[in-house]
Each structure stands twice: as structure tokens, then as C-alpha cells.
């Protein structure tokens, strides 16, 4: 009653009434993901439902901050769009938050796997287009001072028909990633993790995302993960075997990092040995993405300007 006096009496269609759940497509720590149809428009959406862990404080600050960021980033065509946020109540009277995202029918992980199964290579121009879109989306996030920190093929959504790529799992949306236990053969987040993170750096920079982009780039070419470690130590050793064990000369400050130890000494190998089939310009871009020293790693914006993309038709991207 009191709320009506502040103009709050307007009726808002509840999430349950507005959408028809078609199927559950995922489940995570905080809630469930459904493919759903918006009744008013017939549009297919991804509905992510999460219970707010309220106490006396109402909407938790973390939720508030992260939804706000998703709303801000949704403007870019290469970030998955958060179309709406609806608050509702479940059967027990608890507050539930529905995040309404545009629906994408596949992700880069499935896309790569489909080529691996058929034994075909992903066409070079397709790789170039996907990589350009990825750099563009990341440049947009970084332009807003936002790091992703968990880039991997699984959270790069794709539309198979248009070959559009969109970054997902930013913030709260990340909570819906399928739990690791369902992929016992793979530790998702380690493979794309930057060496400074593995070595215990606490101050992240945008360069951690660029490292992940580089790993994804190589994987698009070879259809296999570039550095497939099954522990943090193994992950580091995989990296060092290819790029050489870092020292103070190539990476000033590396030996001061918290988790630095003595490691076997490898000399760097040519990237072309690990990523056969990538042309010279592509190898140059990849090498700049996989620079050891974070401050020397190429930025997403500079990557978009690299000559590797010169012959790409960017008009529709």
C-alpha cells in the first residue's frame, strides 16, 4: 500500500508470466540456465535464474555491481547482451533474480570440437574473423576498465549461421558455468591462464586476458589446447617448454613473484613448431600476445590494427 504512494503501483509482468521455459541447458553454483521463449515477442532467450542471498541488506552489493557492469557492456555487439533484469519471488517467498540474455546456439568449444571430429581444419578466414571479433569485444571491455580474467572457448558464444562471436560469463553470469566436476578430463581455467597469474601475481592487468586470447588463437589453428596442463605446476612447465624458461632478462621481476621457484631450464622454441599452419603474420601477432612480460604484451586495440587482419572484410563485424 505504501509503495503505491511513491508511484510504485505500476504492475510489472513477473518473470514466470513473461517467459515460457523450454529446457534447462545449464546449472551452476548460483542457479539454473534455461532456454526460454518470451511470450510477448516469441523471442528465444537464455534465462538465468539466481536466488539472492539476502539478509538485512536487500540486494547484495556484489550482485548490484556485477549486473550494472553487464548492463553497461551489453552495448557492444561482441559481448553477449543482457536484455533485461527482473526480480521475482519463488514458492518460498524468497527473492529471485532473472537475468535475460540473448540466446546463442553454440560456443567456440563446441565449434572447435566439431572440426576436430571431422578431421577438417577451420578455414583461415573463419579463424581471422573470429579472432578479430574476439579482440574487438575484449578491447571494448578493457576500454571500460573491466577485465574478464576467465576467457576460454566455452564462454565465447557463437551463432553458427552468422559466425558472430560474443563474450559471455562476465561477472555474475560466470556463476552459471557448468561445474568443473563434469569435465574431469579437463581443468578449464588453467589452460588459458597467464603465467603471471600462475606465479602468484596479485595485481592483474588487462594483459591476463590477452594471454588467454593468444591461447585461443593457437587452438583455433590446431584444434588442440596450446598449453594443456593438469596442475598449476604442469601448466607452467608446458609454457616454459615452448617459450623458454623465463628469467630476469626477458621478464624483469619474474623471480620476485610469490610462487616463483627453480625450474628446469628450457630454451625457447619457434612458435611455428607448436602452431603449424599459421602464416607468418599470424605467428607474429600470436608471439606478441604470448609475451612473458605483461606490460609488453600487445593490447586488444593494437591487435585489431595488426597486419594479420589487413585482408579481412571488417565491414560487417
Amino acid at each position, binding site marked *: 500500500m505504501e*509503495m503505491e504512494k511513491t508511484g510504485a503501483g505500476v504492475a510489472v509482468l513477473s518473470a514466470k508470466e513473461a517467459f515460457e521455459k523450454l529446457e534447462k541447458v545449464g546449472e551452476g553454483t548460483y542457479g539454473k540456465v534455461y532456454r526460454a521463449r518470451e511470450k510477448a515477442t516469441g523471442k528465444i532467450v537464455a534465462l538465468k535464474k539466481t536466488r539472492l542471498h539476502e539478509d538485512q541488506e536487500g540486494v547484495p552489493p556484489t550482485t548490484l555491481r556485477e549486473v550494472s557492469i553487464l548492463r*553497461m557492456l551489453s552495448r557492444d555487439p561482441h559481448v553477449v547482451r543482457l536484455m533485461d533484469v527482473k526480480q521475482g519471488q519463488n514458492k518460498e517467498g524468497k527473492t529471485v533474480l532473472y537475468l535475460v540474455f540473448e540466446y546463442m546456439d553454440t560456443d567456440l568449444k563446441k565449434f572447435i570440437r566439431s572440426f576436430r571430429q571431422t578431421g577438417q581444419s577451420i578455414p583461415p578466414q573463419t579463424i581471422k574473423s573470429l579472432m578479430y571479433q574476439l579482440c574487438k569485444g575484449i578491447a571494448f571491455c578493457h*576500454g571500460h576498465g573491466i577485465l574478464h580474467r576467465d576467457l576460454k572457448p566455452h564462454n565465447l558464444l557463437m551463432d553458427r549461421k552468422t559466425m558472430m562471436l560474443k563474450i559471455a560469463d562476465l561477472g555474475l553470469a560466470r556463476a552459471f558455468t557448468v561445474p568443473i566436476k563434469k569435465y574431469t578430463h579437463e581443468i578449464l581455467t588453467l589452460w588459458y591462464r597467464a603465467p603471471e597469474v600462475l606465479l602468484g601475481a596479485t595485481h592483474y592487468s588487462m594483459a591476463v586476458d590477452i594471454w588467454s586470447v593468444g591461447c585461443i588463437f593457437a587452438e583455433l589453428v590446431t584444434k588442440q589446447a596450446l598449453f594443456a596442463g593438469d596442475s598449476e605446476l604442469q601448466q607452467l612447465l608446458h609454457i616454459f617448454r615452448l617459450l623458454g624458461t623465463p628469467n630476469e632478462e626477458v621478464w624483469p621481476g619474474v623471480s620476485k613473484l610469490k610462487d616463483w621457484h627453480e625450474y628446469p631450464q628450457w630454451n625457447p622454441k619457434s612458435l611455428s613448431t607448436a602452431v603449424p599452419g599459421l602464416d607468418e603474420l599470424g605467428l607474429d601477432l600470436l608471439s606478441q600476445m604470448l609475451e612473458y612480460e605483461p606490460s609488453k604484451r600487445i593490447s586488444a586495440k593494437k591487435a585489431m590494427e595488426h597486419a594479420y587482419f589487413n585482408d579481412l572484410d571488417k565491414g560487417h563485424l
Partner: protein
Amino acid sequence: MDFDLENPLGNFHDLPCDAVPSLFLIESDHIPPPNYCQSFKASDFDISVRRDVVSLISQLSCTFDPVLPYLAINYLDRFLAHQGILQPKPWANKLLAISCFSLAAKMLKTEYSATDVQVLMNHGDGGAIFEAQTIQRMEGIVLGALQWRMRSITPFSFIPFFVNLFRLKDPALRQVLKDGASEIILKSQREIKVLEFKPSTVAASALLYASHELFPFQYPCFLRAISDCSYINKETVVQCYNVIHDITREEYESVLNINSTSDTPVNVLDEHFLSLESEKTNGTNVVTQEQDFKRRKTTDYGNNRTVPFSHFHQC
């Protein structure tokens, strides 16, 4: 995901102007629409009630970072633009003030005591204590009206970017300039007319105003740097600069006014009070004059962010 909420451009100190078009493109999502100011100008009542709610928010925020009340008042204006006019009921405006304050505190990761908030809100009368659930529902209403775009792009977001254009080498001088501009931005927000301008325009104008006061000999260089920025409309900056100049001048003059002990700018209440001076001989007017003076004093009190917390108990 990691970010500095107040300083999203903080990582770009050494990058050129064209590296950060993003915030300029979307800042309009985070201010009231252009007709908001017009709707206020049509009603003196709405202006005074907005000022009262702004005052309430300032009281709540007086011990916190000044960015907090700025953000809360931004939410207030965007909410009013969406939901329509303020309610005449004091309790409803208090609830709105508390909700905007609470949401801003959450966005800024600021801890506060709900009990202190309630005490502050009831210092003036025996009003109702708001239950936590009531505040939560009001927060939900504000969130819906603002479409959860709570990470407002404020003028503070642009200050590091523009200061970088000025190419001041000395970090201490840069900080002095930033602080001066920030103070101007905070003061300006109290007045409706600044809301007509985009945050980037307000930031540029405030910096130019501060640089004119602090570094007059370098002012022409700063002006040229702002003018050369392709994301800024120079004419609009000039208009905004003039508005800021008027607001700051009004505040300066009010300090000199021997009838006023406040540092607030001249407003409709002050004008009314001054007009009554000329009719002092009328007994009825003397009574009215006294009432207005007391009311203004209460308002002034809320606007003085330096008043220690303990003073509120004396009201």
C-alpha cells in the same frame, strides 16, 4: 572481473585521447533525460522538495567519500525523471533518500550502520522507523526504474582523462587540479541547471574553471587541449562553464552577505527572505521572516558536509 568503479579510465594515463571513446558514447545512459530540467523549472515546489531530499542524502553521507552522495543524487534524479514528481509526504522522500544512499553505498563497497541511518532520518521529527523490508522494496523499485544501470558514468570518471590531456608533469599539481575540479563538481550538482549537461562536459568545464583559478597562465593551453578533444563540443563546454561560474559566484557572494552564515548559494528561499526585508515594518511579515530563516538554517545545516556527526543530535 576487476575494475576501479570511480576511476574506470585510470589505466589510460599514458594512452592518447582516441583510446577511450567508450565512456563518451554511453554516458547519456547515466543522466536524466534533457526534459528533466524543464519539468523542474515549471515548479518551484519540486525544486525545493528536490533540494530537501538532496539535503537528506547529504546528511546521510556527511562522513563518507563525497563521491557517495554524488552517486546517490544521480540515482535520485534519474529515478525522478523516470517516475515523475516528488511526493509531498516527508516520509516518502526520506525513504527515497535512504534507498538511493543505500544503493550508492553498495556500489562503492561502503559499509554503513543501518541504525545510524535511522537515527539521522528521525532527528527532526517523530517519524516512522523504516523496516529493512520496506527499504529493500524501495531499492527494488529504484533499480527497476534505472534498469540496473547503477554504475553511473559521472564527471569523476572523466577527470583523469582530461587531466592527462593537460600534460601537467608535477603529480602534486595534477592532484591539486583534480581536487579543485572535484569540489566544483560536487557543489554544482546541487543545482538543477547543471543536469542539462553530459558528465564529460561537466568534467571538462569544472577542470577549466579550476585551472583558471589555480593556474591562470596555463589556462589557454588547457583550453586548447579541451577544444582539440574530438569527443567534446566546445560551445557546450562554454555554456556549462558559465553555469558553473554563476553557481560558484553565487556561493562566494552569499558568504559575504552579513545576513547569512551559510555557504550555500543564493536560492529561492534566500530571495524570498531578502524581499521581506523591505517590508520589515509589517508585524505579520516579521513572523513569516523568522519562520523562513529557521527553515533555511535547517537546509543549510544539511548542506554543510563538514559538520561533525555529533552536532546532529543537538537538532
